[in-house]
């Protein structure tokens, strides 16, 4: 069964559209990246999904049903900004929110200890949120989101405030949850995070779908005809290259339509150059977004 199904969603504020004709699905065991710049409509979509806002039109179903109170126990939500009681201890906070999700107190305490240990936060469990760093608070927020073993997890900018070590730890955690069969929606404007984690992406801009589908397929569709190389010595003039530019030792060559990367490689060999790096350039999500947003704008 599909975890989330949204079709032809419309929502506007004071006549100004925030979400227009948006449709997408998320399946169990799948991580969907909801991406787009600030103000694209990501938060509005999430708020409609969680039933905080009513759509003007369109259908939303969670595990095959329209959203209702009991479904809330199967959802874990991590908001964009910290949603914790500042003057409450981390453990009290975790246990309170787990009780609101219908968890048994003794099981919740056991699971809280496990998650705190796994995230390296066990020693800080008696600390108040106001005495924690932003990153530590974000980890507690993450534990609050997943402690009740939700089947649908909605993460809004989950890496905000985390240092590289904790970002990596959080990424591993999220991947593991996906592998366990949870349906995950990861909303962010940091497209590089999505590239690393997501199976599929939904890119929105001005409330409309710009791109939706399998990440690898999308990247394949938008593959550029260029290579990036690093060689010892001068590259010199190469046949079939339309344009070349260098930055910090790496040279990017835009190839003519009939030229293959192999042909460039052969020419460099013939010239006797030592090749340190050779890469067929794939566009980043950011490049694709800029390309599509540019087209959209035109």
């Amino acid at each position, binding site marked *: 069964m599909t975890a989330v199904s949204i079709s032809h969603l419309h929502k506007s504020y004071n006549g100004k559209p925030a979400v227009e004709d948006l449709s997408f699905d998320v399946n169990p065991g799948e991580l969907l990246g909801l991406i787009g710049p600030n103000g694209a409509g990501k938060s509005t979509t999430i*708020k409609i999904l*969680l039933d905080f806002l009513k759509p003007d039109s369109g259908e939303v179903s969670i595990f095959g049903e329209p959203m209702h109170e009991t479904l809330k126990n199967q959802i874990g939500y991590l908001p964009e900004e910290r949603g914790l009681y500042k003057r409450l201890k981390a453990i009290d906070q975790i246990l309170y929110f787990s009780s609101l999700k219908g968890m048994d107190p003794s099981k919740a305490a056991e699971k809280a200890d496990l998650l705190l240990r796994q995230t390296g936060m066990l020693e800080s469990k008696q600390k108040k949120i106001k005495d924690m760093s932003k990153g530590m608070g974000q980890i507690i927020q993450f534990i609050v989101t997943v402690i009740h073993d939700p089947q649908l997890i909605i993460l809004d900018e989950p890496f905000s405030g985390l240092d590289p070590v904790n970002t990596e730890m959080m990424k591993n955690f999220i991947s593991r949850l996906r592998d366990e069969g949870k349906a995950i929606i990861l909303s962010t404007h940091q497209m590089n995070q999505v590239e690393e984690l997501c199976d599929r992406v939904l890119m929105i801009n001005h409330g409309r779908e710009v791109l939706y589908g399998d990440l690898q397929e999308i990247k394949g569709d938008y593959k550029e005809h260029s290579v990036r190389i690093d060689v010892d010595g001068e590259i010199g003039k190469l046949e079939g290259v339309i344009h070349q530019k260098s930055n910090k030792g790496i040279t990017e060559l835009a190839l003519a339509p009939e030229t293959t990367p192999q042909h460039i490689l052969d020419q460099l060999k013939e010239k006797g150059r030592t090749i340190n790096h050779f890469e067929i350039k794939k566009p980043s999500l950011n490049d694709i977004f800029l390309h599509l947003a540019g087209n959209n704008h035109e």
Partner: protein
Amino acid sequence: MNKTFLIYKHEFRLAIKRAGYIILTLAVPVLALLAIGIIQLVSSLSETQENQLVHIGYVDEPGLVGEAVDEGYARFIPYNSKEEANQALGTYQISTYFIIPDDYLSSAVLQRYTLENENTTSPAMAGMIKRFLSVNMLSDKISPELMNLVVSPLNMQVNRVTAQGEEAIEQMSFANVLIPGIFSLLLSLSLMFGVIALVNSLGEEKESRLIEVLFSSVSVRQLLIGKLLALGLAGLIQVLFWLISAPLILQLASSLFGGFLSAIEIPSSFILLGTLYFILGYLLFAVLSIGVGAITPTAREGGQLSMIYVMLSFVPLWFATLLFMFPNGAFSVLLTLFPITAPIQNMLRLGVTEIPLWQILLSIGLLVLSIILGLYFSIKIFRIYMLMHGKRPGMKTLIKHFRST
């Protein structure tokens, strides 16, 4: 477990752990005990002072006083001349002296001399001299009973009767007004702190986006009803604590001071109605605060807006004199029935007069109706504005949004 109950439990714990709540709850009896202590200290100090006789000299030029009698805390010492009296004053044998001039009977003017820089004679000193003169000038002319009346002619007692001419059960006295008056003040304080706490809590939850996490687990109704019940119970515990401690403090005070304090009784009707008005007042203000908390983007702005109805609820205290003068006047009845002023007004009025039953029932009915309607509209407003993080909507926008839902 029911989610409303979980929220209620959590919010109740937060409410009673708040420093403001603990301080206010304990401060009232502690301050009362402190006040009793201070009064006792002051009275024991003045008693010590009173035990030390004041020596007052006098020169009786026309010989009106005759053989003087000591009066109370003063010892009156006769001197033959002003010079003698002056000498005694200069050597601190007396603290002051006065001269009864020859024309005293026609002029009634005395001259008093003192080493202190005094503009007027203190009432205590004047009282002692007056009594001394009355007693000594009239003792051989009138009976002791008449003498007592001359010295203290007025001890008036007011008795309340019914329209049928029978003595009313509840007699009006300062003692009867005191407790309702104090409780009205306490209710005002408690309401104000309760409102501030609720508006702050909602404001903080909105500002920190905690509200989003909560609503991903519970409904608006569950959250708000849980909060209301928790705050209501915290308020009730507070007032019960005061009500329980009041008789003990009164007992202690009356055993120490006696007098009018021993006459104070807290009528059961006041306890019942007072508690009911307290709960209803608390709930009404909590419901209004939810609406305010919903439409204001920050706790600070919410606090400022809530002061409008908090101040409005204090109107009975501002016009307390008018209430004491005309407890059944039109203005008094209006404040009794208007839901925002009803809780404080009726607590005050219960001490001054017997409120007609229809007014009590109508005011309670209006309060309950306001709470139900307030809760309905507050939940609706909260649903519309719970995620709002911008500017507070104007009345026009509010009505427009209301209609669209």
